[in-house]
């Protein structure tokens, strides 16, 4: 007999002016791996936040573990046995890993924190999730992937009945992802229920038994995962089939060199990096997190220091000591951290677009609003940014639209070389396809694109050429005709002396 641990009946949630969830009824079985899918804005986050106790539902009823469930605070959710690993991490960065892990109930002795016990318990948890660091390491010294593991370890240590993971693999490497799935399988075996949200369709089969698809705040269907194909799932998510999504459109030939980097070194300890991007070319950059991809892009752009190396833009040697120099010479950087480093979240769409070149919309230091409006409106239309007005704050945009604003601001500046660092992270399928299309168009117009991504299928779909990073240097290069997932992955791993498990 089906024995649900969580059942939602006609749950609805509205925000001022928006219905975020409408009449959602859902049952999740005990010990089940349930996958929640939907495009950005489909209502997934709202659903999770309801369960996490961040805000209450407006309509409907939720029952958890046989009792009515109406959490008012995240603490209520913990007490009930629901644990959420959010996509955006919230860590006490100036405290140790152990303190972070056990923060909600630090072992005590005579009213003081018992650090020996804290570290001992933390070490055990860390071992379980495969986090290789001392329990006394400060969290601020860890990478994003390791922080993610801490969140997961936290979920483990508090006897949770339901663990919700919101895009846990967004910043993990394939190796870490496998480790995560191993942990999740173990949890399931112990009878813990898992609600899993991801944009990466090919990995959901690893943990999922059933899948629920949301679209525009409504439930489309809940189905057993077995027998479902990816095109079918995509069809449910977007309400249309996405044929031609991977149709490579980059076959326009443009000659000439957009960017050449020769002998770039970030500091005395890092090896030299040389690379080249042709006009009209999209060069994919593969490699593990921490292999030096982001760091190299930032050094080329002048965002971080470098000690040696020559940079040529369209064949001309340029000096780049700061982002200001880089931008002047036609480079642009779309950072990995869109919200933190790319956008002015509290400012309008138009203000975000024109910030790269205010001279174009001003004379003698005084802004010309009409010029700004028409420039911004033009780009909003061209890139099909969905917004009621160019005065809308970028904070209110979905991830895909935010990324388009970032692209728009660099188009406004007239950049010739695009350094894109994980430009599709956290963006839904439909918006991804639009971003690919855009990049192809931009390349065909004679720009050079360096495309860093941790999703290999994505790189294979859009690049003319893929270069592979490991340990801070370029370890391989593969032309489009020879693209092969296996070969590229093994290059990325080889340097680290690791064999892929399959």
């Amino acid at each position, binding site marked *: 007999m089906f024995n649900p641990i969580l059942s939602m009946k006609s749950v609805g949630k509205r925000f001022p*002016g928006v219905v975020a969830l409408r009449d959602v009824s859902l049952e999740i079985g005990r010990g089940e791996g349930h996958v929640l899918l939907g495009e950005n804005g489909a209502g997934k986050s709202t659903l999770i936040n309801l369960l996490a106790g961040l805000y209450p539902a407006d309509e409907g009823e939720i029952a958890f573990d046989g009792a009515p469930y109406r959490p008012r605070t995240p603490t209520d959710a913990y007490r009930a046995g629901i644990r959420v690993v959010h996509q955006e991490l919230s860590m006490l960065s100036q405290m140790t890993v152990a303190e972070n892990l056990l923060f909600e109930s630090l072992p005590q002795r005579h009213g003081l924190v018992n650090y020996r016990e804290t570290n001992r318990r933390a070490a055990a948890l860390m071992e379980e999730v495969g986090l290789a660091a001392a329990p006394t390491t400060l969290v601020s010294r860890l990478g994003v992937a390791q922080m993610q593991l801490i969140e997961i370890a936290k979920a483990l240590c508090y006897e949770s009945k339901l663990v919700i993971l919101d895009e846990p693999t967004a910043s993990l490497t394939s190796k870490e992802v496998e480790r995560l799935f191993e942990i999740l399988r173990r949890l399931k075996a112990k009878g813990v229920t898992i609600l899993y949200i991801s944009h990466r369709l090919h990995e959901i089969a690893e943990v999922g038994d059933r899948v629920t698809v949301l679209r525009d705040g409504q439930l489309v269907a809940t189905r057993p995962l077995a027998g479902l194909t990816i095109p079918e799932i995509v069809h449910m998510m977007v309400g249309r089939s996405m044929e031609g999504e991977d149709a490579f459109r980059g076959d326009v030939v443009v000659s000439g060199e957009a960017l050449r980097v020769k002998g770039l070194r970030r500091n005395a300890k890092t090896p030299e990096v040389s690379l080249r991007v042709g006009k009209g070319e999209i060069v994919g950059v593969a490699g593990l997190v921490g292999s030096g991809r982001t760091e190299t892009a930032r050094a080329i752009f002048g965002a971080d220091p470098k000690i040696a190396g020559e940079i040529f833009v369209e064949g001309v040697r340029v000096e780049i000591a700061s982002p200001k120099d880089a931008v002047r010479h036609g480079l642009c950087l779309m950072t990995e951290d869109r919200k933190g480093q790319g956008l002015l979240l509290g400012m309008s769409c138009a203000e975000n677009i024109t910030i790269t070149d205010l001279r174009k919309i001003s004379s003698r*230091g005084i802004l010309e609003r009409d010029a700004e409006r028409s420039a911004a409106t033009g780009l909003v239309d061209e890139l099909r940014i969905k917004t009621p007005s160019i005065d*809308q704050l970028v904070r*209110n945009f979905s991830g895909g639209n935010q990324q388009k604003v970032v692209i728009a601001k660099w188009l406004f500046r007239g950049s010739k070389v695009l350094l894109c660092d994980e430009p599709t992270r956290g963006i839904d399928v439909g918006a991804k396809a639009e971003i690919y299309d855009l990049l192809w168009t931009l390349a065909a117009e004679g720009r050079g694109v360096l495309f860093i991504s941790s999703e290999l299928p994505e790189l294979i779909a859009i690049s003319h050429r893929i270069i592979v990073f490991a340990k801070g240097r370029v370890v391989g290069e593969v032309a489009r005709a020879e693209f092969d997932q296996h070969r590229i992955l093994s290059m990325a791993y080889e340097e680290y002396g690791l064999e892929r498990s399959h």
Partner: protein
Amino acid sequence: MRNTDLSEATETGRGRRTAALWNDVLRFSMREAGVAVGLVLIVLFFCFTAPYFATPENFLKIFVQIAINTVLASGMTIVILTGGIDLSVGSVLALCTVVGALIMTDQALPVYVSVPLALVGCMGVGSLCGFVNGFVVEQWKIPSFIVTLGMLNVASGAARVTSNNSTITGLPQPFVDFGNLIVFGVFPSIFLIAVGVILIGWFILRFTVFGRFIYAIGTNEEAVRLSGHNPRTYKVAAFTISGLTAGIAAMVYLLRLNVGSPIAGAGYELNAIAAVIIGGTSFSGGKGSIIGTLVGACILQVLTTGLQLFGAGDNVKPIVIGTVIVLAVVLDAYRDRFLRAIESR
């Protein structure tokens, strides 16, 4: 999640413009007008309750009294918008009053030379102090709170050294007369100076490239840097402007009180900060306006005067004013939530 829903209806150009207009109206009315409504309510309250409050003489007095704080607070607004703070303005003002008074009391100079020279001197010394603040903050990445706390002491000491620790009187008569001038029998000259400073500040923040950068830096400095700009220049400029307004405020001080004094301006920085914060400018930068600051300065002064006329003792005043400052920020938090709800419609 919201935008997918609402895009359909307003995709057309006309819909867009209407939406934009609404957005503007709402944003303006909520941010500045919210504070203005507060001011009107407070004024009405005192009009009906405090004797002699609703008299022309009293309003004239208020206009005179807000002048110095308004000028100081306008520079402070710019610094706070970038996410910084300037604690030094009070003692920079003191130093500038001493410098200005020394120049004007120099018997060798005719009035038409000494007064403009004093103005230039005040503005120059003020700007220099501000520039040093900004330079140290940006060069060594030290919190502005600490740097300007240092400058507070340095400028105060410099004022005492320059003045030989005494007040300087005997300013030229035409200068003193100008300070007492009441234009059209309604607006005191120094109030008009303050309004002039506010208007210039408002124009700079709202209509210039520089102003756009000030807001952008306060919103996300790293994003501005990665967009190919150097935030440093603008932040140093913001501190320099704050010093400049302290210099102008010193001239206003001389016009009003007719003495240069090394102990002038003690605690003025806190009043200026209070005006900025009550006026709705966010302490973490990026949000707020100079018009709000003007209204904030008015609220502070109306409260002070009103409570006096009300018969509340000097000891009660700070309690009320302190409460209002905190209350303003609390209301601000609610206003932000409300604004976001409206914006995300």
